[in-house]
């Protein structure tokens, strides 16, 4: 069949495999930065979940922290009340976050972009206030500090260097990522892109647009919840900021920085943002924001479509060069 007739297939590319091997190698190459590395992966997973909603289905959200926070609190509250087994905690957190996503999706998915942006933001801010009020459960502003997370599989304790935490996080993130990848390459994934491109046309070919969106929002919610739970379990602390505005806003920045609608954009963006933040704030703890801002501005000016855009263009150039050669 001619080139024109092929669809992008779902086979693992060499670059992808290399990417994951590299994340595994981090364990050996940067043994003293595993805590940062786990937080990058967790935030990356959180960003991937936003990518499903934003990059694929085209729904902007400034309140994705609502699900992340729910997951974190559920894992935290369980661990504080004697249910410290991590895997089941993760599962429960994912379910709870999915439930929150499902219920709020009926509010969040109406209207246009800006409306959605503010409704999602409003929902997460309301949850933030609720968590602040429910101090008995959440510890309010002081946070939830008495979590007793048990050893992983009853064998591996969460150590101060974050070795267990990193491997645990990597495994979970990889599995959830595979699930997301599967979603993206499925007919459902194609229909999400259709919705992003034109909801009107989707309706005209018989697609229940609203229902699809509810499904993807719920799925993404579960993923965000799992990410939140991972953060709670690996830091053994949950603060109100898991629901905060800047959590959602930074997430959006990372995703766009990495490039939306690409799945790896979230991971790459999170890595870039958090590593840059960490390095810059070491160099200058007070004014580092300036340099981070400058970095962001430059990325936008020079690389349309984030890192993904830049990569695509570079590889196109290379491809062009090769053909000419």
């Amino acid at each position, binding site marked *: 069949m001619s080139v024109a007739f092929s669809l992008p297939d779902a086979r693992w590319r060499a670059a992808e495999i290399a990417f994951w091997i590299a994340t595994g190698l981090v364990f050996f190459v940067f043994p003293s930065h595993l805590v940062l590395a786990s937080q990058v992966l967790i935030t990356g997973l959180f960003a991937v979940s936003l990518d499903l909603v*934003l990059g694929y289905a085209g729904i*902007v959200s400034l309140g994705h922290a609502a699900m992340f926070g729910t997951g974190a609190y559920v894992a935290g509250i369980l661990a504080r009340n004697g249910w410290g087994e991590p895997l089941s905690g993760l599962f429960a957190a994912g379910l709870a976050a999915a439930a929150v996503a499902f219920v709020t999706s009926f*509010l969040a998915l*109406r*209207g*246009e*972009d*800006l*409306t959605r*942006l*503010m*409704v999602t*933001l*409003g*929902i997460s*801010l*309301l949850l933030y*206030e609720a968590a*602040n009020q429910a101090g008995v459960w959440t510890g309010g502003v002081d946070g939830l500090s008495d979590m007793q997370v048990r050893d992983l599989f009853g064998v591996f304790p969460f150590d101060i260097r974050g070795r267990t935490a990193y491997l645990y996080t990597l495994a979970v993130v990889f599995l959830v990522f595979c699930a997301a990848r599967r979603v993206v390459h499925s007919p459902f994934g194609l229909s999400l892109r259709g919705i992003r491109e034109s909801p009107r046309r989707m309706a005209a070919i018989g697609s229940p647009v609203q229902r699809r969106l509810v499904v993807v929002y719920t799925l993404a919610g579960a993923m965000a919840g799992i990410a939140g739970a991972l953060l709670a379990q690996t830091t053994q602390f949950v603060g109100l900021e898991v629901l905060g*505005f*800047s959590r959602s*806003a930074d997430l*959006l*920045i990372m995703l*766009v*920085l990495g490039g*939306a609608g690409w799945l790896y954009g979230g991971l790459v963006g999170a890595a870039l943002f958090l590593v840059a933040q960490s390095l810059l704030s070491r160099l200058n703890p*007070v*004014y*580092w*924001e*300036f*340099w*981070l*801002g*400058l*970095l*962001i*501005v430059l*990325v*936008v*000016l020079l690389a*349309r*479509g*984030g890192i993904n855009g830049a990569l695509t263009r570079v590889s196109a150039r290379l491809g062009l060069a090769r053909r000419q050669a």
Partner: protein
Amino acid sequence: MLSALPGVLFDGVAYGSLLFLISIGLSVTLGLMNFINLAHGAFAMVGGYACVVATLRYGLPFGVALVVAFAVAAIAGGVLERVLYRRLYGRSPLDQVLFTIGLTFMSIAAATWVFGSGQQPVRLPDTLLGQTRILGVDVGIYRLFLIAIVFALASGLALLVTRTRFGARIRASVDDARTAAGLGIDVERVFSVTFTLGSGLAGLGGALGIDVLGLDPTFPLKYMVYFLLVVVVGGAGTIVGTLCAAMVLGIFDVAGKYYVPWAGAFVIYALMVALLLLFPRGLLRRIR
């Protein structure tokens, strides 16, 4: 309790005026130009600092300082528009979000560097201090002053946008820049002027707002939710809508705080969500 109602209403209108003032610049750049300018707060902050420097360091009267605030922010906006913003017009909203957030970060750090991270003092002229009695209600004079400014600004802008050829040209340029240019509209200039105006208004709002909101380098992020809230609830593209939204939110917020203080934090967000669900295109949105 009910006897307090006129006072509460007045305070609500005054608070609404404040919300309007800090959002009006964004209502122009986001609402009219369709440019998601999250750095709006940075322009407001520039206006605020300009006002502080003008009054404290140079001892200018408050009224003159307001003009200075407008001018400085407008110039900053005009220059940035020429050098940077212009490249972003055709880009996706997400790129605009990212870009302007980056600028916001830079502005925060820069302001910290120049002015320190502390709160800035403002001295209002004595004539604007204290309360006066109108129809049996104690009203703050400064609040009265804000309300007056807001109504003047809002009606002026609304006329500009809906009644003048320039207003139509702004909207045409935003709807379809290429076609507008093809029909002889100097889109670049229209955008420049509008952006400069929006930045100036942001600066003016920032200067007028300091007395109530305070001023420190985190201003652009701290109040971002409020700017967005007012503009989006009002409906992008209408000045009157922004005004209505600011008033509704202001009155309900104040009344909520006064009558049901235990629900204080929830009122404004819940109201926002409810209003957006009822009016997904904003309170007064041109039908698109």
